[in-house]
């Protein structure tokens, strides 16, 4: 399972970076979003994968026994998802405005800002 997740994360990172390097602004947005998904899965995997053991204290007990799924990495991912959603929403709007102002989605058509 760990190996599979590692491959998935690797593929997400690779495709994300590839998309960011493309000239189209739309692909840039897709790339950024793939990158953040890859990161979320990485946190999930690095925190340790535990199947079928939710981090709930069973009824009648005061503590929980090992092994259980780590709730912290889940909380981290939840926060990261919310943040990346907000940033993604902003970048979609920004790129739309860029498209409206400049009339192209080709990055090479953007002037270097110093010219």
């Amino acid at each position, binding site marked *: 399972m760990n190996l599979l997740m590692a491959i998935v994360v690797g593929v997400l990172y690779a495709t994300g970076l590839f998309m960011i390097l493309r000239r189209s602004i739309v692909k840039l947005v897709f790339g950024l979003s793939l990158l953040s998904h890859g*990161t979320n899965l990485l946190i999930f995997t690095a925190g340790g994968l535990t199947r079928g053991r939710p981090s709930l204290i069973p009824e009648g007990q005061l503590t929980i026994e090992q092994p259980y799924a780590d709730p*912290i*990495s889940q909380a*981290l991912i939840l*926060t990261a998802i919310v943040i990346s959603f907000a940033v993604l929403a902003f*970048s979609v709007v920004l790129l739309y405005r860029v498209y409206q102002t400049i009339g192209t989605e080709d990055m090479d058509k*953007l002037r270097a800002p*110093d010219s």
Partner: protein
Amino acid sequence: MNSLLILPIVIPMITAALMLLAYRRAMPQRLMGLIGSVIQLIIAFVLLGLVYQNGIQAIQIGGWQAPFGITIVADILSALMLCLSGVIGVASALYSLADIDRERRVYGFYPLMQILLMGVNGAFLTGDIFNLYVWFEVMLIASFVLLVLGNERRQMEGAIKYLTLNLISSAIFLSAVGILYGSVHALNMADLAQKLPTVPQPMIITLAMLFLVAFGIKAAVFPLFFWLPDSYHTPPTTVTALFAGLLTKVGVYSMFRVFTLLFVENVDYTHGLIMIIAGFTMVIGVLGAMAQMEIRRVLAFHSVSQVGYMVMGLGLFSIASIAGGIFFVLHHSLVKSNLFLISGIVQQHAGTTELKKLGNQIARDPLLAALFLVSALSLAGLPPLSGFWAKLALVQAGFEVGGTGSYGGYIIIGVSLAVGLCTLISMTKIWNEAFWKPLPDTALPPPPPMTLARKVLMFTPVFFLTALIVALGLMPDPLLHLVNEAANQLMNKGQYIRAVLGEPHESAGS
């Protein structure tokens, strides 16, 4: 008493919320911005006094004991950085009253500025590595919007670069936090500092490099600085001054924190690399500046170059060098923000900041020329201004390190002094072209002169910052003492760990 720690985060948040209530009305927003910034400044100084007298202060948010909850910690470094953000905040709030046009105000410039300050203050105060990521994002989103507000074409073009590189940096930072958590099962920085030595060396090095890249993009060090010169000259001057004073400093602060508290097991490798990066950053930045012919772009490249000095303090890794680095951070923020504010006034006087179209500003406004000269010479490190003491401290520290048999210290001193000379050349270029030479034929017709009120609003923050620069230059001793104490605290991380986790016998049970 300790709840004072949370105020630098809460006050900008309340100010921004109140501003949103008065969304359509200019006057209340401006007043609130000014009052909020002044309160932040006062609190920062109170906090500095408190931390200086009583040692490192920590507060556990929500009463969750460390290392389980989020901890807010203030040591002298944090408190100094908060004072800096207070000073820059007040100066920009004042300047923005004259600089920000109606369109930008209507779309929420003033609340965003407070949110940005909240993110910056939060990053300086937090004691939790994931929380640091969250504050980075708060700061980033506010800075994205501030950068594009106004919808000018060149703003958009700069913003795409800024957005992409910063999002990649965030992804790397977040991955590093995830892997760190996976290997240590801790997020509290004091807790991490205790547990990290149990992790195998290769893993620590990997993590250190990930953090170095993530913070390196924010701090704009050598191979990662390309977003900075392309975005700093596009937004209004207030925003540029705010960014130049604070944003890269948050990256540098995070480096100082992480590479003194967490990754100190293999100093030869990590800090050696930081020193090489510092050298390249200084040289490439200053060479880039020499090729530019627009005031704000020259200044932006100098920002890159000067980050090299700060990081050099960290790379040399002794108490004296880190103290020098912190002094440099404080000095540079004041000077660079001031220079950007001055460039804004030049823009008002002449209608452009292109050096080829400028000239004879000294006759137009001798006072402005004098103010520029003070800041420019301080940036180049001429005595008796603040930059001289910052560079002197770094060079002395370099000799100490070099004296122990590692030649890296001597090499970096040579590089830094040569770069200082180039900085002076480049500042003289601005002086010659903008202030001294006769007005060229290509000069634009001068815009109508500023009203008196506008002039007062724009000059007051410049006077304020210049006074601070001169004061630091004439009386550097109190600040030198403070940064030494700050460096002492950073290098003896036991104090930090005790302040956060409590005495060892208490935390043994948890």
